């Protein structure tokens, strides 16, 4: 396997975010090509490529587009999910900072394919730097005749609105995002109807992740076969892997799907000096953790699923032996408690309860029998909550218990900070552990 810079290929250009720079490297050529195709042909190419959503769920993108009813007389909308907030995920925001035009081009092509004349980029509010770059990219594209009325003489109109969120992880859930974009509380909607039929303003809507859309121009330009020449049959193409944690060179590594973690870790310079991988999470806090034993598993949807976890956002978090699993899990649960929207009982009350008990463990005050209680409570959330946030919240603890039950038992006596001194876990001393 190898690194395959496509999206990141020109991020080292000092003006990588400007339209001239983007065009210099072949930007917006795919758009011209797409506009000469019929919308259904564009959907066909994306379908053929096997591109799967990069936001976490991995749903085939072309299929999602094809669900939008045609000739229904209603306006269609494309909504970009740029609400990247999953703990561990950090690839969409850098992409929008470094190369917003790849997203804009993807949006125009996708909108053309699904016959949408309005697109919205919903960016979490905490990243003004990315918002500025995207707003600027939209303005540049408008000035260049790539957005607006009759784009490139094709007769296709598109207007993009850049919309900032205001701090709510749940808005990454596509129906919550739509409610939020409609100026409401970001609580998930009852499905059906699905967004493809009744999404934004009750009209057919496609919600796509940033990386997904940014991947589209290269597929349209180079063809489905080119895309499929990377990755595996079920997980074709390239992917931004953002590797974080106790590694020497944390960052974004664009590689073919199927690249094993061991290889990515090598690109990331290995674990920091004196450090040993203790556990890792392949794709955000919502997916179960793995151990060094799993490090050679190909990073694909199917292989990780077979290993009992998920590719998720494809942003591995690597933790070494200095890390308190108890503390890590507690923080994630505090996060889910903070971000639970409150709509459904299991998630709202369950995260409140589990977090309260876990905090005792973090301080060395848990009771042994409470481990079974937390596990049971997780079981009462998983599969019973309204949306996937509940399932996600019910994930870290059972998965940590699978490998580190002893550590939780120790936390009935010793605090996390005593067992695992923060001074060793922090990376302030760049020399290593």
């Amino acid at each position, binding site marked *: 396997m190898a690194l395959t810079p496509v999206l990141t290929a020109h991020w080292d250009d000092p003006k990588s975010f400007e339209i001239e720079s983007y065009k210099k490297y072949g930007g917006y050529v795919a758009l011209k090509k797409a506009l000469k195709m019929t919308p259904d042909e564009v959907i066909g190419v994306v379908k053929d490529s096997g591109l799967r959503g990069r936001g976490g769920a991995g749903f085939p993108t072309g299929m999602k587009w094809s669900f939008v009813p045609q000739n229904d007389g209603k306006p269609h909308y494309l909504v970009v999910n740029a609400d990247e907030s999953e703990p561990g995920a950090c690839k969409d925001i850098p992409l929008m900072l470094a190369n917003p035009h790849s997203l804009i081009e993807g949006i125009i092509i996708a909108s053309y394919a699904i016959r949408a004349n309005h697109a919205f980029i919903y960016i979490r509010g905490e990243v003004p730097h990315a918002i500025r770059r995207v707003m600027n990219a939209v*303005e540049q594209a408008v000035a260049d005749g790539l957005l607006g009325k009759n784009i490139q003489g094709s007769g296709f109109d598109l207007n993009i609105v850049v919309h900032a969120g205001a701090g709510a992880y749940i808005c990454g859930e596509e129906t919550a995002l739509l409610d939020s974009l409609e100026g409401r509380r970001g609580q998930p909607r009852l499905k059906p109807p699905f967004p493809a039929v009744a999404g934004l303003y009750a009209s057919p809507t496609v919600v796509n992740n940033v990386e997904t859309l940014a991947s589209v121009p290269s597929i349209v330009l180079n063809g489905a076969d080119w895309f499929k020449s990377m990755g595996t049959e079920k997980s074709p193409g390239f992917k931004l892997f953002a*590797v974080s944690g106790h590694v020497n060179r944390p960052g974004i590594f664009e590689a073919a799907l199927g690249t094993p973690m061991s290889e990515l870790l090598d690109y990331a310079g290995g674990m920091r000096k004196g450090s040993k991988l203790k556990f890792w999470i392949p794709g955000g806090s919502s997916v179960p953790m793995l151990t060094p034993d799993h490090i050679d598993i190909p990073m694909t949807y199917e292989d990780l699923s077979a290993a009992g976890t998920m590719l998720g956002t494809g942003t591995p978090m690597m933790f070494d032996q200095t890390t308190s699993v108890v503390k890590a899990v507690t923080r994630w649960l505090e996060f889910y408690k903070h971000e639970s929207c409150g709509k459904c009982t299991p998630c709202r009350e369950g995260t409140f309860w589990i977090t309260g008990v876990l905090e005792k463990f973090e301080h060395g005050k848990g009771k042994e029998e409470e481990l079974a209680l937390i596990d049971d409570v997780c079981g009462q959330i998983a599969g019973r909550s309204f949306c996937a946030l509940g399932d996600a919240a019910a994930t870290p603890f059972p998965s940590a218990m699978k490998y580190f039950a002893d550590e939780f038992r120790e936390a009935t006596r010793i605090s996390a900070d005593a067992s695992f001194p923060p001074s060793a876990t*922090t990376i302030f001393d760049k020399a290593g552990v």
Partner: protein
Amino acid sequence: MSIKVISEEDIKTLETLAAKYPERRSALLPMLHYVQSIQGMVSPAGIQVCAQVLDLTPAEVAAVATFYTMYKRFPMGKHHIGVCTNTMCALLGGDELWKELTNTLGIGHDETTADGLFTLERIECQAACTVAPVVTVNWEFMDSMNPKSLRELIDKLKLGAPVQSTRGIKITSIAETGKVLAGINDGKYEESPLADDSMLAGLRVAQERKMKAPAAKGAQ
């Protein structure tokens, strides 16, 4: 702290925000960002104004304003300082930075210093784990912080000395950020520094090891 009144001019701005969307209510989040940028908080008056512009009840607006963490019901200081204490940042140093900061400033979560300069918040994951631990100033990132760089940051902000965000702009104030979030482009997109090491990590390895994505059939 006296709170600025929302002016007729501001209401006109709110109207233009509402006009950007096929359905006006979609502008509520940007509008709340805007009234917060004027008043340093989402006040009952701010809620009332948004309700009037969008023909909603104040309760409907309050329901939205209280749902999102970034809207504050208390007046913020000039700078909003966020410390990420979600797992990755916390472990890699965020917890220590938080301790440092609360000690230095003498305030806790969602509190403001007496001089009105800083409001402190424990924040959730900022999607910047590769540059953990992260501190934000007015939501502009300060990457890979340590106690020393944090102390320097605070000292500079106290003195009003220039501070450059590692991903964003030269620090101004939380009020200015609010306007950008409202959708008003401040044109400062070039102020962000070049892509950092973490963003270029993979590309550099690829360049070093001469790795490339496969060429397209028929491509040169």
